[in-house]
């Protein structure tokens, strides 16, 4: 029996041998063997890339030690998967052209500054901005080969001896399966059993199981949570607790602001349009960074968009006033407009009173907002069309890194179970108190929406970065890479939360992701309009 097993494997691998020798290129001309190791190199460019490596080797053996150390500390690295452009950027750093060097300081921002000390090496001058030159080309190429099938991947992370929790997970999955098969008698029995099992657990597993069990129960008994207007202000409050308890929102704001700051380099009038205004938590830090620019702050205009509040209370106006006070204190000329909209799809570029782009540069920002559009046909396309019309310098997007939008109930149940288990796990390290409890309620509402709701009521339709990439690519955007300076400072930001233990920042194809251990949970990406959509095919 074992011999056969061995023999079979041996045969398999012999076939693999031949197969691999023949097919070393994928559909986009990328070397397949390097691609699986994380490097994107076109087979046709392999020799050139090799040449650049040789050049760098020779240069590095000839230059001063200081220059090499500059490559480590001063140079901002972008997208190390794209070897061609990464090597190019280092070659030009060792051979600087006579262009003016841009000063790029770390974002101070009061909200962040008083929590950690800025690394002195990152605040020194002569950082060169580098946008990967082959970026748009590569992205356009990849999207030229239409990727309609999203391959399912699932990163399961078990913390400590969660072997006990596994039984509970199985019961939850069995219940979800019963619901999917509309075997409601079985589902009902299972959901009661889960209730008992959950109580015997501790920590994150217990909380997650309880929320999922409740959501399942709602679905079984057709008790969808109502979406009353009161929900919105409660939502904002819960979000603020979430903001304090764990780094996800702060990371989102920080990394998006970094991309916006870089895009606004040298601009005298800037306009930020925030699709996810809420309490405006993102903007004090950006305003302070702009105030500290060596050439002085630009004129800063902010358009905040949000849903209506109960009693039509003008919370957007109130937020605007607070920001105006801050702007005055830090001597930044400030202009503000709040827009109430039931959905982003109600927006048109004409409503925003945009100024010509030579006069005012625009950034559009969306944090955990776009996925809500996916429940209504045509909505996301409308919004991306409006973004296109606005012609922003940069479009920053932060979304949950998970596919909770599968049409198959069991699939989205399973994905969200793993996702929120990891997320709740990360909260365990936070100090106990109201913030933590409210954060759990905040996440619990999301769980309920994913599991118990359907149709337009189901707004938490999270999708992965890879899915968003395809969408943005088709809509005419190309990725603007976020670099190693943002990576490093984001890592430092995390140190504030529980010593940073467990949180991981990862760079992936120019985007930054924040995860708990090895499971990415949120992804920040930055987009610009493709200058030439027909480039690589």
């Amino acid at each position: 029996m074992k011999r056969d097993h061995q023999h079979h494997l041996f045969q398999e691998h012999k076939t693999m041998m031949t197969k691999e020798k023949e097919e070393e290129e994928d559909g986009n001309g990328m070397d397949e063997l390097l691609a699986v190791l994380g490097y994107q190199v076109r087979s046709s460019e392999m020799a050139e890339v090799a040449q650049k490596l040789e050049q760098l080797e020779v240069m590095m053996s000839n230059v001063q030690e200081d220059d090499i150390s500059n490559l480590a500390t001063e140079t901002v690295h972008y997208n190390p998967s794209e070897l061609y452009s990464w090597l190019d950027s280092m070659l030009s750093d060792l051979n600087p052209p006579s262009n003016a060097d841009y000063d790029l300081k770390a974002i101070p921002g009061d909200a962040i500054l008083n929590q950690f000390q800025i690394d002195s090496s990152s605040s020194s001058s002569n950082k060169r901005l580098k946008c990967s030159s082959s970026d748009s080309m590569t992205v356009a190429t990849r999207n030229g080969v239409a990727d309609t099938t999203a391959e399912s991947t699932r990163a399961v992370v078990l913390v400590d001896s969660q072997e006990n929790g596994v039984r509970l997970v199985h019961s939850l999955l069995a219940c979800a399966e019963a619901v999917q098969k509309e075997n409601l008698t079985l589902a009902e029995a299972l959901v009661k059993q889960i209730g008992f099992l959950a109580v015997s657990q501790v920590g994150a597993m217990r909380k997650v199981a309880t929320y999922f069990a409740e959501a399942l129960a709602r679905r079984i008994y057709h008790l969808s949570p109502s979406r009353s207007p009161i929900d919105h202000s409660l939502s904002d409050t819960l979000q603020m607790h979430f903001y304090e308890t764990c780094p996800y929102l702060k990371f989102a704001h920080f990394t998006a602001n970094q991309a916006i700051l870089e895009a606004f380099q040298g601009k005298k009038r800037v306009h930020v349009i925030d699709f996810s205004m809420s309490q405006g938590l993102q903007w004090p830090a950006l305003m302070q960074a702009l105030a500290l620019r060596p050439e002085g702050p630009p004129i800063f205009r902010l358009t905040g968009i949000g849903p209506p509040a109960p009693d039509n209370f003008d919370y957007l106006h109130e937020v605007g006033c607070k920001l105006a006070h801050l702007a005055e204190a830090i001597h930044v000329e400030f202009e503000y407009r709040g827009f109430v909209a039931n959905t982003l799809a109600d927006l048109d570029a004409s409503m925003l009173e945009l100024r010509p782009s030579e006069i005012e540069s625009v950034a559009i920002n969306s944090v955990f907002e776009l996925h809500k559009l996916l429940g209504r046909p045509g909505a996301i396309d409308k919004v991306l069309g409006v973004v296109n019309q606005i012609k922003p310098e940069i479009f920053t997007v932060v979304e949950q890194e998970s596919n909770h939008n599968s049409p198959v109930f069991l699939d989205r149940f399973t994905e969200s179970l793993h996702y929120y288990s990891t997320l709740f796990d990360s909260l365990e390290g936070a100090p106990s108190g109201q913030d933590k409890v409210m954060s759990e309620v905040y996440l619990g509402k999301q769980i309920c929406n994913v599991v118990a709701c359907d149709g337009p009521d189901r707004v938490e339709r999270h999708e992965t970065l890879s899915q968003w990439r395809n969408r943005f690519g088709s809509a005419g955007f190309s990725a603007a890479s976020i670099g190693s300076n943002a990576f490093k400072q984001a890592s430092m930001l995390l140190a504030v939360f529980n010593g940073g233990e467990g949180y991981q920042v990862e760079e992936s194809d120019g985007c930054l992701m924040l995860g708990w251990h090895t499971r990415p949970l949120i992804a920040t990406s930055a987009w610009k309009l493709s200058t030439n959509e027909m480039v690589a095919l």
Partner: protein
Amino acid sequence: MAGGNEVNLNECKRIVPLNTWVLISNFKLAYNILRRPDGSFNRDLAEFLDRKVPANSFPVDGVFSFDHVDSSTNLLTRIYQPSSLFDHAPHGTVDLTRPLSTSEIVPVLIFFHGGSFTHSSANSAIYDTFCRRLVSICGVVVVSVDYRRSPEHRYPCAYDDGWNALKWVKSRIWLQSGEDSNVYVYLAGDSSGGNIAHNVAVRATKEGVKVLGNILLHPMFGGQERTQSEKSLDGKYFVTIQDRDWYWRAYLPEGEDRDHPACNPFGPRGQSLKEVNFPKSLVVVAGLDLVQDWQLAYVDGLKKTGHQVNLLYLKQATIGFYFLPNNDYFHCLMDELNKFVHSIEDSTRSKSSPLLLTP
């Protein structure tokens, strides 16, 4: 000197496929930037540059993986299994309630990734890919283990973490197999991982924990003396004596030299393994690795004390040859590994003199 370098670069490029050359040269370049002359290391930039991949509990090419983290150490362990073991488990979920098999023996390979004690992680793309290939080709379960890295954590941290990993693996019900419900363990590693495997095996022997075999893939050893291979191969095939020295200075306790037993286990300060029930070893040496004299000395050291060791000497292989399956050495390695890890199931194998295997 420049002329000499050009010759070296050209020769090196002729020996390996171009994409292999690009891969390993790229690592060499990045590592040069990350190491600082004062012995410190740019960990932030290293983490930014390292290409990582997530685990995937959905099988890909017959292999699925999932992660385990110990919250007291935050060290990652990634477990890879062949999906063929579990016909009935729903895809994408992980079942930790039952053993790998109750009838057959399924070897568990504890793999310590390389990186000269300083670089890489279990979730680095190069190691994730390698481990998947191991599972796919050899039909074993692989447990890839992270350890605290230098220079932030020196000797003996990596060995302690390796030892804890062995104990953890041995105590998992879901890694048991066979009629006796044991966890059948092999220790494996490349570069520094090979060094760790040796040291964990030594401790296992002392403490009576059974290890079926050691697999050392161009293991990282050294010594004060400059050997012939170091002198003649210095700088020729991606590696320099200078960088090797840096990594030893970063790992060994401050002030120590390279005859410290962690670096030179059978050297003047080494520990004899005479009359010790050390597991059998498979040692793979790349013929263009400048460290080979130390690796061969290691093999000799084992032989001299009567331990079974198979030496696989790959004459024209460079370091990292096993990262890409585009060369004969890769396939030769996999063949030997396959035989080595399944020999437990072949009870008729006799203890013979050390085999020298050269393709």
